[in-house]
Every structure is written in structure tokens, then in C-alpha cells.
């Protein structure tokens, strides 16, 4: 967990929560996005394209749709626009998923 800034006068952090990433428990903090929690864990690629190429956070602001993952069962969810919640289930996404899944 060495990738978060040290706490200081200007940096506060929400209460600790636990999410699972591909079934593994990962500690995060309320107020962080899933993208931030994954980056802090050193997970750069959140998914692969249909051609198998890795994709992760690119714009960080909801525009590029590169940072997708399956969050609580919903595929193609933007990790940079989704706040972590205690008990949240995050799965890195592999290629395409069926419409409406």
C-alpha cells in the first residue's frame, strides 16, 4: 500500500473499507474511486480489449471509457467514476460481455 500520499495537514482520508478485487480482499478508503484504489494496489490494467490489449485509467474523468471493470456484477463500469463501498466486488474485465449483462 505504498502508493498513497502520506497523511498530512492537507491530506485527509476517509474511514477504511474493504473491497474485493478478483476475489482478493483489498483495503481502500471511503471517498476514493475504484480506479484510485486499484492504482494504489499497483493494478494498472482494469480490463483487456476484444483484441487482448490491456487498458486502464487514461482520462481519469469519465470520458474515455478505458478504465472499465465489472463492479458488483455490472460490466463496463468506469472505475474512475465509481466510489468504493465496503464489501464492493470488483472484477477485472476480459474482452466483451453480452448486452444487458
Amino acid at each position, binding site marked *: 500500500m505504498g502508493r498513497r500520499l502520506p497523511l498530512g495537514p492537507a491530506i485527509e482520508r476517509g474511514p477504511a473499507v474493504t473491497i474485493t478485487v478478483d476475489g482478493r480482499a483489498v483495503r481502500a478508503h471511503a471517498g476514493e474511486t475504484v480506479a484510485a484504489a486499484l492504482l494504489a494496489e499497483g493494478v494498472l490494467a482494469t480490463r483487456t480489449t*476484444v483484441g487482448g490489449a490491456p487498458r486502464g485509467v487514461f482520462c481519469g474523468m469519465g470520458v474515455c471509457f478505458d478504465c472499465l471493470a465489472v463492479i458488483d456484477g455490472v460490466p*463496463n463500469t468506469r472505475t474512475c467514476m465509481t466510489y468504493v463501498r465496503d464489501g464492493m466486488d470488483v472484477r477485472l474485465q476480459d474482452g*466483451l*460481455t*453480452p*448486452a*444487458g*449483462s
Partner: protein
Amino acid sequence: MTRRPPERFDVIVIGGGLTGCLTALRLAQAGAAVVLVEQYDIGTQASGRNAGSLHGQIQHEPFVVEGEGWAREWAPCLGLLKDAIAGWHALSDELGVDLEVRTKGGLLVADDPAQMPAIERKVALEREHGIDSQVLGRDELLALAPYLDERVVGGELCPIEGKASPIVAAPAIAGAAAGAGADLRRHTPVRALERDGNGFVVTTGRGRLAARRVVVAAGADIPRITRMLGVDLPVEGPPMQVNVTEPVEPLVGHLVYYAGGRLTLKQAAAGSLLIGGGWPARTHPVTGRPAVDLEGMRRNLAIARSVVPAIGGARLLRTWCGVNNATPDQRPIIGPVDGIDGLVVGTFPFLGFTASPVMGDLLAALALGRAPERDLAPFSPGRF
């Protein structure tokens, strides 16, 4: 004060969309010294904002609205589009880039028996012009496309139709043109176009250029350029929009149209569903640029969902818009301009992405003073 003399070329191409870039590619390959000027970046206007459908049939809405007389006059376009689709396949090979050209066929879907007679007449006319389209009954249609709604009653298959990727095509073609020796000048708007002896001088935002011949491939902006030489051409620029969903597993293999309303629907190689069909966008009151029309977007999506219900599970990512190019009779304008030796114009309305490989060949030939084999009389700039 003496002005610097203009830089000299054999041909100046105005407009860096697919039409202009393919013209420049063919001219450079033929050994001509060619410069292309584009006011913005290459391929950012209609050529970078279209839906990537490869169209090979008479469009159903004008067939019904304008009538069969119109369609007979338009029909010479069919052979051009057929050759252009073959040209797209050849381009992927020539450039060594996968332009995502896939031609599984286009399906025009009817859900009311009253729509079938017009489809039958349209197919007959297409067949007269060398297009191998067929009328399909309900069972044949559903066997080919089980993803369609049960309500369908029949339709048309146009086997040469499909899609290619505009996102990949424009930069790949521009790169090939530059590689062949064409001088591509971005951010170089044409401000003036004048006769100079038996040639032309073009004044741009970045200096003056001279050539014996000029090709105007400026899409919707063609009239603005030709008027500089006193030539008025009825080309317009209607704003239009297209929708794209999140990428999903393969669902729709064909280019799908609907006989009861405006629709084109297909799935890109990346998995996203592209939903359009010539829906108008608004013009933004402040910027004057096209802006999304929300009501049209909703109606377009509702039609798409009624034809292919499963797409309702895919979430919309965005709707974008661009300025299309239009002519009053929907036929292209291709050819030298009467009375102005050396001036060539080219635009293919509404279906110009599809047509661009042939447009490039024709405009390059005309600019080299060669007479193309194709009969260009129906497309003459002098017909209006």
C-alpha cells in the same frame, strides 16, 4: 513591396477529408507534384465523424419519398458504390492496414406487409443495375438474422454492404498519401482562389500556392470555394448525429436498415453498436456548430430497439454529430467545371464515406486530364 512568388505544384487539392486524401494519394502515385490543404486537421470533418456504413443499395426513404423516377435517375450511383466497396477491400490490402472492412450484407427490414411492394420494386431496379440484392420472406430473414424482432414480415438483402472504420481509415490513408510524396498541409485554410494565366493561385492562411489544376474536395464547403471563381454549386451541409453504445459481445452481424423509419444499425469490430440513419442534429445557437438533438436521439434509439430488441441491454456511451454533404438530387458532383479549365470538383452526398475510394480515383484522373472510363454525365457539375 514585392510579394514572394507562390510555391508551385502540378495540382492543389482543397480539403483533407477522405475524398481529398485519396485524390492526393492517387495523384502522388501517378508522379504528380501535389499539395493538399486542409483548414483543420486531416479527416476531422464528415470523414472522421460518419458512421462507417458501406452502402450499396438505393436508400429506402428517398425511394419512397422522392419516388421511382428519382431513383431511376439516381441509379447510376449503384455501380459507383459497388466499385467503391470493392475499393475498400483493396485499400486494406494496399495500405497493409486493417481498415475493419466487413461486408456481411445489408438487411432492409419490414414489419408491415404494406412496406413490401416498394422493397420489391427497389430490389428490381437495383438488379437492373448490376446489384445482386434479393427480396427475403420472413423465414429467410429470421434465419439470416435471428436477432431481429419476431414482428418482421420480410425485407431485402444487399450482399455487398457492410462497414469499415472511419477512425482507422482517415489517418491510414493520409499517411499513405504523405508516404507517396503528397505534401499535406494541416491548419491551412484557403482564403482566396484566383485564376492566374492558365492556372490558379490559392491564398491560404500560410502562404500562396500555384498550380495548373485545382481539385475542390471541400465537402459541404465546396460552394464557398467555387464562388471565389464565380461558380455557384448547390451543395449543402446538413448537421447529423450518430449514437454509440458500450462494446458488447457480437450481436448484429449485418448493416440493418428499417423500412418504417430512419435507421442504420451495425456493430463495430470493437463491439460497440453504432446507431444512426441520417438523423438530423441541431445547430448550436452560439457556436453555429452541430449539436445533439435529444428528441431525435431518443426516437432513433427507440426504432433501433424495436427492430433488434436485444440492443436494449447495451448502454449508450455517447451521441456525436457532424456536418454531412448534400446535393438537391442526391447524386454526386464529379467533374471539371465548364468554362474554368483545370478546375475539378468532387463530392458524394450522404454516402461519401462509402464512395471515397472511387472518388479519389476519378478526381485524380480528371486532374491529370485523363478521361475516366465511367460515364460521368449524370454527375456533371453543370447539371443544376
